[in-house]
């Protein structure tokens, strides 16, 4: 019996019938819609669950620096500041490295062992669990930062905005670099050859042709990296110091939105407390959307039409 079946299956590689075609299309459509519906559902449930807090504090929630579970007064500015500061600082630190890696692998040494090794290692970075980054930050980076702080004469906490940003920057390098590499490798060779034929040096080709051509793609990679940095929780919470104050400098401890949610959600007793934490989640969602929209606009502006 089994033999008959397998023979039949091997016999004719048929073209798919119109019926299976439409079924295939439907499956694609449904899968795509599920994702959209999921995002909208998350937004909706965030809004509904944060309603008590929205009602109690209104817009004041976005301007108040108080976060006092005992007297049930909540404001998100401290965490918003911490999230934005660490993420953009991380981006700033990661930018030269990820750009260098993209250019090196995407243009200079495309086929060599060194570049494939570099590629593998960068991609490996993306696969390391964030708690490992957190421990690395705590045991390796924090003592280094503390030594630096002692030399500079500031309070030697070690943990703080700077440590969190450096850990974040290492975590987001692979995201920025891998997309950068792809788009740099995609720059048409006739453009590059035209540059060379006009007597341009390699460096000139990179800075005057490749980078302008690929900049929208590079920006897209950076945007993806920024999204990752904004939402990172575990690694940040381990090295940022978790002080609910607006950071006064890069050595100051602080706290981020994702970190406070992860820290306080399990023991949040009281409806208003829980709802305020969820409102922070909503705020994080909104920040991500805004940054994505800005990014999209910027990418559109800088895209080079050939």
């Amino acid at each position, binding site marked *: 019996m089994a033999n008959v079946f397998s023979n039949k299956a091997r016999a004719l590689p048929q073209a798919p019938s119109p019926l299976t075609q439409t079924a295939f299309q439907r499956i694609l459509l449904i899968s795509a819609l599920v994702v959209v519906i999921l995002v909208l559902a998350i937004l909706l449930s965030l809004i509904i669950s944060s309603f008590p807090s929205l009602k109690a504090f209104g817009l004041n929630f976005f301007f108040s620096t*108080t976060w006092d579970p*005992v007297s049930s007064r909540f404001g998100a500015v401290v965490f918003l500041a911490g999230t934005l500061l660490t993420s953009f600082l991380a981006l700033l630190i990661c930018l030269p490295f990820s750009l260098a890696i993209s250019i090196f692998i995407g243009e200079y040494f495309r086929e060599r062992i060194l570049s494939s090794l570099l590629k593998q290692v960068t991609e490996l970075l993306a696969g390391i669990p964030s708690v490992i980054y957190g421990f690395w930050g705590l045991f390796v980076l924090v003592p280094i930062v503390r030594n630096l702080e002692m030399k500079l004469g500031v309070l030697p906490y070690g943990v703080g905005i700077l440590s969190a940003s450096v850990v974040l920057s290492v975590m987001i390098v692979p995201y920025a670099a891998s997309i950068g590499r792809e788009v740099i490798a995609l720059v048409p060779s006739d453009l590059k050859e035209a540059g060379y034929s006009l007597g341009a040096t390699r460096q000139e080709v990179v800075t005057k042709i490749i980078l302008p051509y690929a900049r929208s793609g590079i920006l897209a990679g950076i945007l993806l990296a920024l999204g990752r940095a904004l939402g990172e929780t575990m690694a940040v919470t381990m090295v940022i110091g*978790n*002080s*609910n104050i607006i950071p006064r400098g890069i050595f100051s401890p602080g706290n981020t939105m994702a970190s406070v949610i992860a820290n306080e959600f399990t*023991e949040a007793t009281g409806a208003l407390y829980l709802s305020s934490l969820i409102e922070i989640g909503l705020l994080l969602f909104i920040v991500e959307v805004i940054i994505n929209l800005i990014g999209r606009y910027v990418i559109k502006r800088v895209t080079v039409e050939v």
Partner: protein
Amino acid sequence: MRALFAILLTLSLFFFASLSWAREVELVGAGATFPYPLYSKMFYSYWRATGIRVNYQPIGSGGGIRQLVNLTVDFGGSDAFMSDEALGKAPARILHIPTCLGAVVLSYNLQGNPGLKLTAEIVADIFLGKIKRWDDRRISEINPDISLPDSDIVVIHRSDGSGTTFVFTDYLAKVNSEWDEKVGRGKAVSWPVGLGAKGNPGVTGLIKHLPGALGYTELGYALLNGLPVALLSNKYGRYIEPSPVSISQAASVNLPGDTRISITNADAPLAYPMSSFTWLLLYGEQAYKKRPFERAAELVKLLWWVTHEAQKYTEPLHYGPLPEQAVMRGEMIIKSVTYDGKRILQ
């Protein structure tokens, strides 16, 4: 044909296997992380002795209470007793069974690990940010034998909501009116100064790596990490070292019938002042959500065992055993548990 037969065989195997599992009761609990090392030891021993599995998830006291109120677990665990208001909101009467005593201790990172003495006022002022340096006159006055460094005190507190924080802030609120007004007591508070770290391991880790750090943690974690522990003055002005004996002394006060009492700054001469009960919570009437009688009976048996035979596991793990009075109160409460209006234990 053969394939079909194989599928049927596997299915039937699964069916019978699940039948035999169903006969075995697995009790499910969730809650406090503070007594988790003790509970996991206890429940493992209980499984070895009786074959009854107890699945306890250390998700935090708040989460444990939430799950009990939502009827998803057989019992909850909490370091802070439920308030009258919270009990009123629960779907049915919830009972508190004390299981052991724990201590919150002050650990620090000073060169040479000197034995430090602290008083309630000094601790409150350090955590309020009023005492900023180790060589402050008030600290050196009561510690004449040790040379304190002329460096800043790095205050470490918990960043996550926790029962440990509740015990610590409850103590400070009792002994210091300024703390009571400005900060108050809670599982998470608005800290005037300091760095936050997640969990007892996070706090001990930070203290270990930050010279000049001072933080509060659970006794077991401090000892496990080889951190020095400060002696703390109690209500009678004596400097008490936290130990299972001095912790249990704190519970030698008169206990209310439902055992819901805060025993920080206890009125006992040899008591360590930052001690606390930890409780397991269950419903007084067990016939809810169509639970079988068997399950309720196993739960009651387990609680009896935890408050009696299992007390021998407390001291090796640096928890305080229940004093006699607490055991008796626990017995009364366990005996009052009913199933369909009838007492389970006679």
